[in-house]
């Protein structure tokens, strides 16, 4: 028994102190192989989850900053143009786009922006994904307030000094942002799906009873105010909205003048947060209906479009 022990001990000692190249190589390779196997198994399990997390993070950034309130699915489309600053183009199922651009000529050379463009070719938001611009100087041209005020709701191509104002002391970054936005507008015409086709813009569903129930329409400043009677299509037959349109004939505000809709059903459509979704839309407007409140959703939609039609 003790002889066997001595033998095992000797073998162990030999293994540990062995210095033959063959033994060293084999041992190291064997250990590496086992480790590689463990890593491969872990990767198999975690890789799909990690990809999911990254997509989720990107979508959250988009929903929060670039296309507020967007609930659809964005999928990558092939960019076939020649602009090297376009990183990726995502297309939504309602013909909206999110374009990731890294414009040339930024101060740090390291600026990536996301530009959201809605089906009516108005900007929904511009967001700096990553930037090396100087804090307090160039970064002022990337702040949410500035980007919101200068870009949201406008349609390209835009020019500094014209539709868009630069930030004083941050000219280079302002120029880069403007270039990025213009590149984004170019990019959506250069995807594998072909150039922008206005006929692809989703049309408003059949509007059964919409006679132009425009009670009043007046010019206000550079825009218009229309008081629309949406009653015929609504649930309670009593629904009057005041639709404010801006100089670009896009919705800039909707207020409820009178409503008999059920508060917890149709009322949800009339909440400020929901009506806000119409802001910025022009031509033909549409927002997601709220389930359980189809009458009111359709009535509001018909009313807003009646107002838009009236100013065309």
């Amino acid at each position, binding site marked *: 028994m003790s002889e066997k022990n001595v033998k095992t001990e000797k073998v162990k000692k030999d293994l540990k102190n062995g210095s033959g190249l063959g*033994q060293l190589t084999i*041992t*190291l390779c064997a250990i*590496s192989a086992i*480790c590689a196997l463990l*890593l491969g198994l872990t990767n198999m399990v*975690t890789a799909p*989850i*990690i990809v999911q997390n990254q997509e989720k993070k990107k979508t959250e950034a988009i929903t929060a900053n670039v296309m507020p309130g967007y609930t659809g699915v964005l999928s990558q489309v092939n960019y076939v143009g020649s602009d090297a600053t376009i990183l990726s183009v995502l297309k939504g199922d309602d013909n909206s786009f999110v374009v990731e651009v890294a414009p040339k000529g930024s101060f740090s050379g390291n600026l990536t922006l996301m530009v959201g463009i809605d089906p009516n070719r108005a900007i929904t938001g511009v967001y700096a994904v990553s930037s090396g611009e100087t804090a307090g100087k160039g970064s002022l041209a990337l702040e949410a307030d500035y980007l919101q005020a200068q870009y949201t709701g406008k349609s390209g191509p835009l020019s500094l000094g014209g539709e868009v104002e630069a930030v004083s002391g941050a000219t280079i970054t302002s120029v880069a942002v403007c270039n990025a936005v213009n590149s984004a507008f170019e990019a959506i015409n250069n995807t594998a799906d072909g150039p922008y086709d206005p006929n692809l813009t989703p049309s408003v569903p059949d509007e059964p009873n919409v006679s132009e129930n425009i009670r009043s329409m007046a010019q206000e400043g550079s825009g218009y105010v229309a008081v629309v009677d949406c009653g015929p299509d609504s649930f309670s037959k009593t629904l009057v909205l005041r639709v404010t349109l801006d100089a670009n004939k896009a919705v800039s505000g909707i207020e409820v003048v009178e409503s008999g809709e059920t508060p917890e059903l149709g009322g949800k459509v009339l909440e400020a947060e929901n009506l806000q979704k119409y802001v910025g839309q022009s031509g033909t407007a549409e927002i997601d209906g709220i389930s359980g409140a189809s009458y009111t959703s359709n009535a509001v939609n018909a009313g807003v479009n009646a107002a838009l039609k009236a100013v065309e």
Partner: protein
Amino acid sequence: MDFKKQFKEGLITQNPVTVQLLGMCSTMAITISLFNGIGMGLSVLVILTLSNIFISALRNIIPNKIRIACFIVVIATFVTIVDLCLQAFLPDLSENLGVFLPLIVVNCIILARAESFCYKNSVAASAVDGICQGLGYTLILVIMCVIREFLGKGAFGGGILNGGKGIQIFPANFAISGMAQPVGGFLTLACVIAAMQYFLSKSKNKKTEKKEEVEK
């Protein structure tokens, strides 16, 4: 394998940070919020224990000449596994820890324990050693987090309490913002080590006094 002895050693008498002076860079860099401190401490604990078990199990096969290379391969493997798992299941912690998670590969604590303990001891003892040393490391991280957050931001429990913002004990304007910077890390760590050494030497003196009395 004396669990009580190893536990005491891991936490106090052979604490990896304050006595063995290992793994100090990550200690100073991570201890800005409690969530990061606890997260990092537990990650090191898991990696330390797993690599201790693995290396101890292979201790009779790993030749002396290439033992460091083998240790690094094993440690790097477990660090990567933990990194992938955190990215998948705890992405917030993974983002907060940032580059310091991959840096655990060269965290001296793990390499030192592998070399000095696991290569010569059984799997069970090594596992216990990993847990105890990991706990000691986490303890110091928590202490430093609490001190630095309190003095540097006037808060407690950043990342965990109060929906992630931490409980504001006094307004941040009155806090010493330098404590949340690297200089604060150095100063806090120095004070913690000094305090630990003081209490250790005091208890050592007490013991020798007692021994002398008994001998008398």
